């Protein structure tokens, strides 16, 4: 399974949420890999605390591989290479957790046919080994998004299922931007169709993920005055209405992740220790990640809209 993670804006929580999703699938025994296609700013190494790939690698990362400068992409085994003790050492029954970092000196490059072909090769190669390949794309309309839309339309990849996660924060601007990224002119559906995807079928493979959500009913907000709560409640209702109108509503949503104090301060994987031992992170956050990790593979969550 290929999962593409995209967002219209930067800083939505796309990388952090995606990393936590693959981590939770690995814990459940799946072989997973995380591909850093955010060619402008490769950062996935930092989230997994892999210092050798903190800002990408100079040993043949994703860019070098796609441009055929190296035969095999550089890979990092998180269970053996992470500097964080909670991530080092594969837990019993866990699957592989592999990071394919970007190049430290990368930058975008245009989608030429040879690059698309190499991308197809990469996805086939990884499908041999991994149950889940999560591809972290850059924010907005990028060459990377264009390339994977072209690649997944190719007959060679017909047997490999793919899905899209569109991340956005729960604000007016983010809701409108996320909808635009998918539905507007030159959005994902348009570009996908131009590459030969069936627009309706492609739309069925796209779901939205809300990040850093504050629920007005949350006990964290119990200190607010009742007028403030009433106001929040009203805003929230407006947002739901706006989301529904923009086809980003509940039915198109795969899940939502609550605002977490730890993630607000640091981009990281939330391990059980953070929740139960040191109690710095919220249980609701890991539950949300787990829920997303389940739904990615749950056919019922991907039935026609």
């Amino acid at each position, binding site marked *: 399974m290929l999962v593409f993670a995209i967002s219209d804006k930067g800083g939505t929580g796309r990388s952090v949420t995606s990393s936590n999703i693959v981590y939770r699938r690995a814990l459940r025994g799946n072989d997973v890999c995380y591909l850093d296609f955010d060619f402008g700013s490769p950062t996935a190494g930092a989230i997994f605390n892999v210092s050798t790939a903190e800002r990408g690698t100079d040993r043949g990362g994703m860019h070098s591989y796609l441009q055929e400068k190296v035969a*095999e992409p550089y890979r990092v*085994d998180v269970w*053996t290479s992470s500097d964080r003790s909670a991530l080092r050492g594969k837990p019993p029954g866990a*699957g592989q957790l592999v990071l394919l970092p970007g190049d430290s000196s990368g930058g975008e490059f245009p989608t030429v046919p040879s690059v698309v072909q190499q991308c197809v*090769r990469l996805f086939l190669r990884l499908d*041999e080994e991994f149950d889940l390949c999560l591809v972290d794309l850059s924010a907005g309309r990028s060459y990377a998004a264009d390339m994977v839309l072209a690649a997944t339309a190719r007959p060679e990849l017909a047997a490999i299922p793919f899905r899209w996660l569109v991340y956005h924060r729960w604000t007016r601007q983010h809701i409108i931007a996320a909808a635009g990224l998918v539905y507007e002119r030159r959005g994902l559906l348009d570009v996908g169709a131009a590459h030969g995807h069936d627009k309706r079928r492609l739309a069925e493979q796209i779901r939205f993920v809300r990040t850093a959500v504050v629920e007005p009913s949350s006990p964290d907000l119990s200190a607010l005055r009742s007028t403030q709560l009433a106001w929040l409640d009203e805003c929230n209702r407006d947002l739901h209405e706006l989301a529904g109108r923009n086809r980003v509503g509940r039915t198109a949503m795969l899940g939502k992740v609550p605002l977490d104090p730890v993630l607000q301060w640091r981009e990281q994987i939330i391990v059980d220790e953070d929740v139960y031992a040191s109690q710095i992170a919220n249980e609701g956050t890991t539950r949300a990640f787990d829920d997303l990790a389940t739904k990615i593979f749950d056919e019922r969550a991907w039935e026609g809209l």
Partner: protein
Amino acid sequence: MLIMGEVHTGLLRNLGELSETECREVLRLTSGEEPRTWQRPLLYAISPDVLTGVDCRLPSSSGARIRGTGTVSHRATIVGGRVLQGSSYTTLLRSDSDQRLPWSHYLAAPGVVEVYGRPRWQDMADGFVTPEPPMDVLNVGAISGRLMGAVQDSARLDRKTPFKTTRTRLRWLFERDDARGDGRPAMRLTLGRDTMRTLRFTGEPTTDVVAFCEDLALHDWLLTTLQTLIQRALIGTAAPAQIAARLSPAIDHLLHLWMPGARVEEPFLPFWEELERHPGFTRQWTSSVARIRDQITVNTLSLLSVTESRREADGDPSPRRGVPQDRTQSHSHPVRRRIFFRADQRSRRRS
């Protein structure tokens, strides 16, 4: 002189096992020439050696800038219609010239790279086995990787994997046995922390060494893959049915492929014998296989007790009613077959 190579091993990207004809078709595409095949003791298909010209920096642990020119041989092998190997190797020899000669000179000695200057073999050998050599030195592993890709991308394959597996890489280095000269094999196999293994050994140089390395790489991959399946099955924690399901790829695709030494020439058999003593390849394999079979039996028994109690509830003592006789033969899944077999015995005992 030194012979160095790297073998990559992985599962062929095809749902079913390939027949001999299909193996030939797939491999023909990589070299354009007719592959060789063997039927016994297992189906082997090997593409003819193909050459890649190289003119580049050579490995060195001291960081010395040594260069060489020549060719690297590579070939692809399919074992049992199921496992793919990409293998590349070259012999490093001292060049009589200190500059590049016409290509015809190098083509006259296929699979040889001539080293300029005064080669320090030990330094080159150490450089070759370091986990992350500089990006600009000769990388025979990249050639093996490319070869694997070329076969896996073949349109003759359905590009579906029966189960997920990791490729392993065996980087090997064969040195002439000058120092000891007592004819006894000396070798060191090291498992890296990821999928890389390194093998250094000494002896009388011959290219038969390649077949030995491929055979070792194959069995190391089988063992690695089996261990992974066992580890994921969570024996002792998960439910029997779940464990059996997680182990079933081993039974369906791997267990019959274990034949260490099958393709190895006489002079290299002592190396296998040494590996059997330490670390004990077949010992580990046999105990893993026993473990898998035990788990499958446990699951079968628990399935049986379920069906048995259902049958008693239905008041139907006959376990095979309505099942055509040949079903038991035609069904290829060993788990199922065993259920029928035991059910047979029971019904006979009852009547």
